[in-house]
């Protein structure tokens, strides 16, 4: 039997593949092949379960990664299918027709990353957040500390002295190679 990763590569093309563990295979494919690939996997291979669906923000590349984790419940092997989509035009095809519980994953990813899954029933419906009016919070550029400081001011009376800076100051540490500004 042909190795599943090689078979996928042959049928759908693949950008990279990796055997992370004997029971965890990983493959990177183009976004447009996701639905045909997952449809094929569910119909013609033992990878019938959708165990997980996740997103990762690669802000420095201007991309989101979508990760679909499928499991073969009989042979006990999982297959991680990864793809990258544009961060500005953050849109991906929904897979809720294949696995109904994908609706929740897609709803949450939509809420937390701002990735849109056209046709998925609960897009735009809040899952966890209520009255959220900031950028989607799981995006890397959402600043948790700034958000906290503006929404939950700290109690007064806290003052931290950083030992490193304090010692330098007290003992007159200085540099001679640069002019101080």
């Amino acid at each position, binding site marked *: 039997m042909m190795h599943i990763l090689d078979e996928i590569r042959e049928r759908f093309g693949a950008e990279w593949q990796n055997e992370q563990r004997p029971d965890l295979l990983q493959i990177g494919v183009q976004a447009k092949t996701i639905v045909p690939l997952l449809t094929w996997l569910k119909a013609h291979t033992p990878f019938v379960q959708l165990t997980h669906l996740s997103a990762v923000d690669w802000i420095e590349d201007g991309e989101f990664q979508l990760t679909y984790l499928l499991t073969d419940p009989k042979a006990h092997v999982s297959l991680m299918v990864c793809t990258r989509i544009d961060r500005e035009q953050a849109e991906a095809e929904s897979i809720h027709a294949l696995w109904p519980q994908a609706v929740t994953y897609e709803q949450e990813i939509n809420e937390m990353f701002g990735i849109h899954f056209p046709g998925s029933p609960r897009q735009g419906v809040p899952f966890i957040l209520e009255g959220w009016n900031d950028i989607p919070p799981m995006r890397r550029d959402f600043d948790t500390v700034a958000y906290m400081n503006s929404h939950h001011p700290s*109690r007064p*009376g*806290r*003052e*931290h*002295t*950083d*030992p*490193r*800076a*304090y*010692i*330098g*100051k*007290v*003992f*007159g*540490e*200085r*540099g*001679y*190679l*640069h*002019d*101080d*500004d």
Partner: protein
Amino acid sequence: MSVKHTLAPFSAWLQAFSKPFTLPDKHGYREGADRYRGWHINDTKKCIGCGSCAEICQNVAIDMVPVDDPVKGDSGLRPRVDYGRCCWCALCVDVCPSGSLGMSNEYIWVEADADKFRYIPGVDPKPWDNAEKGWRQEEGFDLVDHERVPMPMLDPAERTKTWAEVVIGYSEEEARQEASRCVECGLCVAACPAHMHIPDYIAAIRDGDDIAALNIIYDNNPMPEMCGKVCTRRCEGVCSIGVQGDPLAIRWLKRYVTEQFDDLKDVVHAEVERVGEGKKVAIVGGGPSGVTVAYYLAIRGFDVTIYEALPQLGGATFFGIPKYRFPMPSLEKQVKLLTDSGVKIVTNHRVEKDEMRQLVKDNDAVFIGTGLMKPYGLRAPGEDLPGVMYALDMLRDHHIGKKVDITGKVVVVGGGNVAIDASRVSLRLGAEVTIAYRRRKVDMPADDEEIEDAEAEGVEIIPQAIPLRVEQTGDGRLDFIWGPAEMVQEEEGRRPRPKLIEGVENHMIVDRVIVAIGQGAEHSWMPEEIAEKIADKRGWITVDENGMTAYEGIFAGGDLVNSTADAISAIADGLRAVVGIQKYAGVLPQAEDEGSEPVAIAK
């Protein structure tokens, strides 16, 4: 539905008559488990204020607050815990490099005022301060890395056959790994006489940015390759990781960085205003203090000339330190940066009285860093016999290329680094070497590693040996006669003194006696009117906070001025004079005068 199933729910009622499951509340208080994570305690005497607890706290529940004056090895800061944020994860306890922080097994504390739940453990008294039970560090689980990456060294048997460097140096991977052990507390900065930006260059090494590391190092040390090889490294003595493990190999990390670059000119970037254009400075003595003054003034546009009596700059680091520790190419590389920066160097030139007078007249400032060149005598009969020599002379002659008359069996008298250097050089010249030292081995001022290396190479050390006299034997050899000493504690808190045990004489037949018991200043070259003003009877020179002597315009530094007699202290003296001379010449930029924060920590 059977009768059994119908009756079953009522069986619960039967329990009303049996012993309760739950424990009766006899005492109104249940003691927490032996390793319960309760309110914090801190042994403030053990605590060194490194702030690793605050650093690891994921809730930002810990502030470091000043409770005492900072001293070397203790920032004087202590952690204050905010229980509005603490999650009792005890990572602060597990990371604590000094092992001072713990948690009591006490968990009840009632207050009406929420702000009361914030205190400095060990400083603000709490009922659980002396709790014996509660979460403590346990052997087998460390959040910091206590093991130093071992430094590859030449095999001891190979070493004595060659002048090659004994220490091989870290590879890139080893250096990065060693650098990653740092917790960046900065205690080392306080201990370093020059207050080098140690945590910052270590962080740069860890992050793989050697160029940044080198520039941070050069920010206040113009001879880092020398320091990277032979520094007395007071920094490592106070390293917080060193409290329970091996201190960071700060010296070896500095060495690693400096060894990555063959030519420093294009790598070290001075970004200073050339405020000193048109000003002239003469430097007498090309040791570490003089080099420091020369470099940092030259990059500021000063016209700087160094006068050096020996054929090479470096002072004691050139003529005193053996080449298997600090090879010539390392020194030359650093000297080249000086000349590249515009420093004029006059070697093989001993400044004499008249010339000195002229220098004072011709220059805006003169810096004296001539060091201690006059060895102390043995102060025992027979010290003038042929075959008795001074370590300092012997090392200097050896390093300037003169033939040194070392042969057969040699006894070196002394316990400092010079004694060790003289021994190891003698070994390499083919001698069999014994060291005789007045006190115990633990009292030896020489670096521990140096002592270990010397012993590994075959040097024998006789501690508690007081030289009585040296006599000539019939066959032209020397009889070194010494008496054993006992250690007497004369005053509480001071180190014990060796006292001769009368009536016992030991004989050691040797070919050479090398005396290495210290050295003093020598000012015969100095015009009387200057010497009288700046030096005391023993030759020590006193300077003010700007590094200036009592003679206006003359600055001084190095072994002449400080009592620590190491290169890094000399560099620190030089740095002080760099500011002092600029101030004296009236060209110190305002910002620098105020001593604003160095670039490295201002980030």
